[in-house]
């Protein structure tokens, strides 16, 4: 009995013991699970706190059971909303079928790294890189969904892509050959269409190969160029001779720059080759053209010199030979008048007088024409001239020759830069003219002076003579044009033409002003020098 009691007690104790142990075990495992979940939660919270990415946890039925703050701020849903909605609403693309297929893969235990487009509550979208992996905890499968907003990366990628596109476009459409070489001198990746055209090799033919354009004899020069560039130097516009596919030579102008990686290490070089064939050809033509031009100029100069010499000879001949018969006519007419006076009646004497007058007039014409031609031929000797004293001398000579009393007005201090002999001829001609056309006046006055019109300094000779009809003033400076009859006002009509030509040789202009019976004024400029007043104004 006692044994039975003992056995019973023992069995009971054992049962209780086992019962307790099982309970304890269960309690322990429950505790452990709890602790594990706590750790997970803490871990999740930690991730939530520091993660820059959206983190969503889905249960094995694909319901959202956790979402971090970043998810809330990114999608615009509250946590409560997120826990209620189908996570598929967060995804714009890819299509639901693909999502379903991915889900199957995940359910098979695979991890995924994918690019998707996600959609916010307000309908706006953003590119995302998602990493999804199943996590099994206590036999339950969860899905950890980490989503990174890659808008910035995408923008940067697009920018980079655009820039690359532009660069490629520039390289491909550039009219100059562009290619790159690696450290060994092999063509890396660039060999643009212009390079194909320039050298004849297609891009596919040369990629990865040594530069085929360097002729044998230029190898050492190429190596020197290469080593200089590889030391970091750039070279610009080096004139070189290279070869085309087939071996024909081509003249190029080459610029090379070293290429660097991000760390600044030289990784190769970029070459730009300009075809110089056309330019060389043009230079050649230009040289030829210059040569022919020089030849032409020489020919023309020599022809001009010949013409000038002929003109000199002609003038010399006119001076001598044309005047000689005139002297004979005049001289012998005079001799007849003197020696045969008694045999000539009044009419005969008158005829001889007319012969002499005409002869002498012809002599004057020849003289004036010679002077006109001479002033075109003589060399100018330009000096600083005291025009006032030049004018005074010319006035005195004019007065002596014409034997008339004139009231001269010539101010002191007028100066110009020009040829004194030629300008004396100008003044003499203008003074002679003025004297001639004041012949009928009782108190002839001739004024020489300077005036400023429209900012230009004009010298002038003004008289109080008979003047002229202003409508003919353009004809005044033409040789042999006369506005008055030769009988009233003798002269050859060459004086003012001479004035115009001399002033023209000084680079100046002439201009006349006058009215009938109101005097005349002749203006001229001598731009070769500055007047004293202008100098004072400086």
């Amino acid at each position, binding site marked *: 009995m006692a044994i039975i009691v003992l056995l019973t007690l023992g069995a009971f104790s054992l049962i209780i013991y086992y019962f307790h142990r099982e309970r304890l075990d269960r309690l322990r495992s429950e505790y452990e699970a709890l602790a594990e979940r706590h750790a997970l939660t803490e871990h999740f919270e930690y991730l939530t706190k520091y993660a820059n990415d959206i983190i969503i946890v889905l249960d094995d039925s694909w319901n959202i059971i956790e979402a971090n703050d970043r998810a809330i701020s990114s999608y615009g849903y509250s946590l409560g909303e997120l826990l209620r909605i189908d996570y598929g609403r967060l995804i714009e693309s890819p299509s639901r079928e693909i999502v379903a297929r991915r889900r199957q893969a995940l359910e098979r235990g695979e991890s995924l790294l994918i690019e998707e487009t996600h959609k916010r509550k307000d309908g706006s979208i953003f590119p995302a890189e998602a990493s999804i992996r199943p996590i099994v905890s206590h036999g339950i499968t969860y899905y950890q969904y980490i989503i990174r907003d890659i808008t910035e990366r995408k923008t940067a990628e697009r920018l980079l892509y655009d820039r690359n596109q532009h660069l490629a476009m520039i390289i491909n459409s550039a009219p100059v050959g562009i290619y790159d070489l690696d450290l060994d001198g092999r063509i890396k990746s660039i060999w643009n269409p212009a390079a194909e055209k320039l050298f004849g090799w297609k891009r596919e033919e040369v990629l990865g190969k040594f530069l085929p354009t360097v002729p044998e004899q230029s190898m050492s020069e190429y190596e020197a160029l290469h080593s200089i560039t590889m030391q970091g130097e750039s070279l610009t516009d080096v004139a070189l001779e290279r070869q085309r596919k087939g071996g024909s030579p081509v003249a190029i102008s080459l610029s090379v720059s070293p290429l660097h990686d991000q760390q600044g290490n030289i990784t190769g070089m970029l070459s730009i080759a300009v075809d110089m064939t056309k330019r060389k050809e043009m230079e050649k033509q230009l040289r030829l053209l210059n040569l022919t031009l020089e030849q032409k100029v020489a020919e023309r100069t020599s022809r001009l010199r010949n013409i000038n010499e002929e003109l000199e000879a002609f*003038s*010399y001949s006119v*001076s*001598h*030979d044309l*005047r*000689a*018969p*005139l*002297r*004979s006519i*005049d*001289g*012998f*007419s*005079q*001799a007849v008048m003197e020696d045969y006076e008694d045999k000539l009646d009044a009419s005969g004497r008158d005829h001889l007088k007319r012969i*002499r007058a005409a*002869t*002498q007039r*012809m*002599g004057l014409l020849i*003289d004036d024409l*010679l002077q006109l031609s*001479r002033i075109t031929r*003589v060399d100018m000797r330009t000096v600083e001239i005291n025009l006032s004293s030049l004018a005074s001398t010319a006035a005195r000579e004019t007065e002596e020759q014409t034997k008339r009393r004139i009231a001269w007005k010539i101010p002191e201090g007028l100066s110009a830069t020009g040829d004194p002999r030629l300008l004396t001829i100008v003044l003499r001609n203008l003074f002679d003219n003025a004297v001639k056309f004041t012949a009928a006046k009782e108190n002839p006055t001739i004024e020489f002076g300077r005036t400023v019109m429209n900012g230009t300094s004009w010298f002038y000779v003004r008289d109080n003579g008979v003047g002229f009809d202003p409508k003919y003033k353009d004809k005044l400076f033409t040789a042999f044009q006369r506005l008055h009859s030769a009988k009233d006002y003798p002269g050859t009509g060459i004086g003012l033409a001479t004035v115009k030509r001399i002033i023209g040789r000084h680079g100046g202009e002439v201009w006349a002003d006058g009215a009938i019976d109101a005097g005349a004024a002749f203006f001229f400029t001598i731009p070769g020098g500055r007047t004293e007043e202008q100098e004072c104004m400086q």
Partner: protein
Amino acid sequence: MKKSGGKILLVEDNSDDIELTLRALKKNRIANRIDVVTDGEEALDYLFSREKYRDRNPDDKPVVILLDLKLPKIGGLEVLREIRRDERTKLIPVVILTSSSEEQDLVTSYSLGANSYIRKPVDFDRFIEAVNHLGLYWLVLNEPPPCVRIQP
């Protein structure tokens, strides 16, 4: 006009001009003997007693030479150069009497040692006047140079 005994050498190829010059001299009562030669070569032959003048006494020099510039065979300027180069003739006054008013002729004449340069005017009255001045100066006022003896 007071007479100066020497003779005048006129070098002129144009017969009209010879006639008119002689007439102008006569009009001015210049009664000196006037020898006329009609080209440059003849002028030099005359002065240096060569060729057809070989019998002429070379010491019998003209008091003045009236020299035209445009002459056949040897031009006036060349004749002047020869005259001035030779010891026997270099002191004889030479008056250029020409139609030319070309400056180059004037400059060359003076630089070769011409004593005067007269441009023959078309107007005969003025020519007479010019010859008058010429005669007055070279035949009356001017003291002729002493005869230069040539060392044989």
